[in-house]
């Protein structure tokens, strides 16, 4: 299973762009990269998923370089409500047994 490494924590201020990078050096050919957001006492919530290059939705962008050994979640103009833990997950979503390893997550603190 591909193991992920993320910074333990990050601080930002309201209105700034935040970029969180995840390393996954042994990502497999069939693996996708998925990011989740978790608030205290709630289950993780899906943010974005990608395989290569760039993916954008209404919440975030995901940048994946050609070698796919890392990925960067970009949150534009964060607000206080974006304070949460962000998890990077790598796995083959066509194989339930291979989409299971959550890393430690990055605790993002957005300050006023």
């Amino acid at each position, binding site marked *: 299973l591909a193991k992920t490494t993320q910074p333990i924590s990050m601080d930002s201020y309201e209105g700034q762009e935040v970029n969180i990078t995840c390393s996954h050096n042994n990502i497999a050919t069939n693996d996708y990269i998925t990011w989740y957001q978790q608030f205290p*006492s709630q289950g*993780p919530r899906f943010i974005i998923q990608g395989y290569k290059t760039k993916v954008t939705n209404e919440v975030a962008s995901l940048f994946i370089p050609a070698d796919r050994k890392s990925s960067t979640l970009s949150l534009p103009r964060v607000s206080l409500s974006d304070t949460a833990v962000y998890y990077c*997950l790598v796995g083959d979503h066509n194989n*339930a*047994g291979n989409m299971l390893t959550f890393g430690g997550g990055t605790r993002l603190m957005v300050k006023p």
Partner: protein
Amino acid sequence: DVKVTQSSRYLVKRTGEKVFLECVQDMDHENMFWYRQDPGLGLRLIYFSYDVKMKEKGDIPEGYSVSREKKERFSLILESASTNQTSMYLCASSFDTQYFGPGTRLTVL
């Protein structure tokens, strides 16, 4: 919208009790998962199921069992609860991405 519900948000049990945690999803997903989450340890997989009556052990199955009699329902069972099973329990279901329930905070006294 995908909906994953868990039977209780908070639960308090005594050591040695049998505990059932229920999870129901409404999207006809084949895959369902049970995790526990503890401070500093992140999410750890207990069991998962990829079909009715099928189950696979995750990283920390000891002290737990599961049941999947219907596609929409996946139950986690603590045969004899112990204090070290005090934790937040999270259920998820997936077709491709995982959708999580709100969690059950279990305290074993």
